[in-house]
């Protein structure tokens, strides 16, 4: 079966985001961008299915500006067979991304879509679920283990209070949690080879999808700051502060 992996270009997780001076958005210019860490996990899962002979082809998709090509090249270097960029300068919201992905799913007919559970920039945690709903497919979010059968998959999910295992019908959308696997790094020869792999560029108009958003960003701002406190010298002083100053114990 074909596996489709949507990958998002985001601010690198090591960089602390700051609002632009005029509060119109987050400052991204000149900062390091990387593949969303959850999407690296999704890529790794797809590659392992291919290595095990359970997946025939891996297609990486990114929706966004031309710069997303870089993220797709990373996906190709990791092991995707080909890539699709849906190029737009519009700020895309999860529903718009899900609609774009839906059209590509109908075209490519994959047996499985593996998304990250959330993108670490907008932290929306919506796209995979929305895609599953638009397709009328089963979903299994926050996966920490996936066993693929021919027409069903069994997926262990991280939920409040523990773990649950679902049996879902295929095709389906699965979203990855942190403990699904440890993603590999791209090797230099594979990075070179990736440059020759096919990367198709489409626009939302080509796919017939209106990506205008009905959410407007009014402003972004620093959250209320927390005052740093004091250092105490020993356990006795700590207990005294907790009892008499903070009055929490």
């Amino acid at each position, binding site marked *: 079966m074909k596996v489709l992996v949507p990958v998002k270009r985001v601010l690198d*997780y090591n960089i602390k*985001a*700051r609002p632009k001076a005029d509060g119109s958005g*987050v400052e991204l210019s000149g900062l390091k961008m990387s593949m969303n860490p959850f999407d690296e996990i999704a890529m790794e899962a797809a590659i392992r299915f291919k290595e095990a002979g359970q997946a025939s082809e891996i297609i990486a998709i990114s929706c966004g500006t031309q710069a997303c090509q870089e993220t797709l090249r990373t996906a190709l270097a990791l092991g995707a067979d080909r890539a699709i960029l849906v190029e737009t300068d519009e700020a895309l*919201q999860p*529903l718009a991304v899900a609609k774009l992905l839906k059209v590509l799913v109908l075209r490519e007919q994959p047996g499985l879509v593996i998304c990250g559970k*959330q993108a*670490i920039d*907008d*932290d*929306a945690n*919506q796209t995979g*679920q*929305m895609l599953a*709903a*638009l397709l009328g497919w*089963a*979903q*299994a*979010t*926050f996966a920490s283990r996936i066993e693929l059968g021919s027409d069903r998959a*069994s997926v*262990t999910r*991280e*939920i*409040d*209070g*523990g*773990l*649950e*295992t*679902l*049996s*879902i019908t295929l095709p*389906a959308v699965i979203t990855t*949690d*942190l*403990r699904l696997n440890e993603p590999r790094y791209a090797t230099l020869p594979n990075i070179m080879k990736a440059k020759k792999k096919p990367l198709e560029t489409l626009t939302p108009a080509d796919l017939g999808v209106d990506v205008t958003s*009905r*959410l*407007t*960003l*009014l402003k*972004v*701002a*620093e*959250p209320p700051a927390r005052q*740093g*406190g*004091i*250092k*105490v010298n020993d*356990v006795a002083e*700590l*207990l005294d*502060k*907790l009892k008499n100053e*903070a009055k*929490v*114990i």
Partner: protein
Amino acid sequence: MTILVVAEHDNQHLKAATRHVLAAAQAIGGEIHLLVAGQHCAAVAESARALSGVGCVLLAESDVLDSAGAECMADLVLSLARNYTHLLAAASASGKNWMPRVAALLDVAQVSDIVRVDAPDTFTRPIYAGSVWATVHSEDAIKVITVRATAFEAVAETGGSARLEKVDAAPDTGLSRRIHLALNDSSRPELESARVVVSGGRGLGSAERFSALLEPLADKLNAALGASRAAVDSGYVPNDYQVGQTGKIVAPDLYIAVGISGAIQHLAGMKASRVIVAINKDPDAPIFAVADYGLVGDLNQVVPALTSAL
């Protein structure tokens, strides 16, 4: 405005998060209905009638709702959605799972994880691991929202006298089915609603030391146990202990971070706590920048001393 809040419960008890989501609904204003959906959960619905501010409790019971997954739950909420201006659920593992399906099928945006209601159509939510707060305005006719429970004071458990109505659950889609459930032993308070949280990181070094040092401390304080991602990944504790951007968001009265460096992804999950204590041997650890009381020292000495002094 009429608001539908979807209750979080385990078919026996209402979870505390529900009362916090109701508070967000009150901040929006208007008539509030509460949906209790599950399997044999009539008692939960009955007790929810007393919640402050709720006008009507809707009860949907079916044998599949509990185990049939997000597809069924989303279909149920969707079948009620057109009667409401706002749909609210907690941004918990459950709400995050099915709510986006509802939004997609209504063809509206979802506003995830709100921490503030600025107006009935304007909400503030953290992005980038909480480094930045974004204020967004929604033009959709039905606003689909998940709520960060810790950001809103819970409504009172009593004082209300809501009417009770039964509604039909959606039929099983057959798309997914739970085949196994492994819940962790829950003798401790729930992480998200505990008054005190004791959290451990990689500094604990092993599962054995995590439990030998932190369990007695948590016992003395009647605290929930939490952890950093590094502690979970190293197998010291189960996954649902993880606090942070991609784990649980907590805001207890007292958060004690032991052997945790204070990575931004961890801080995202606990920096709204009222009082933060950090115990770390590295005086420059970033956790001290958010701690009200920092103690520089070896946790192997400090923690037992603290436990026995309590």
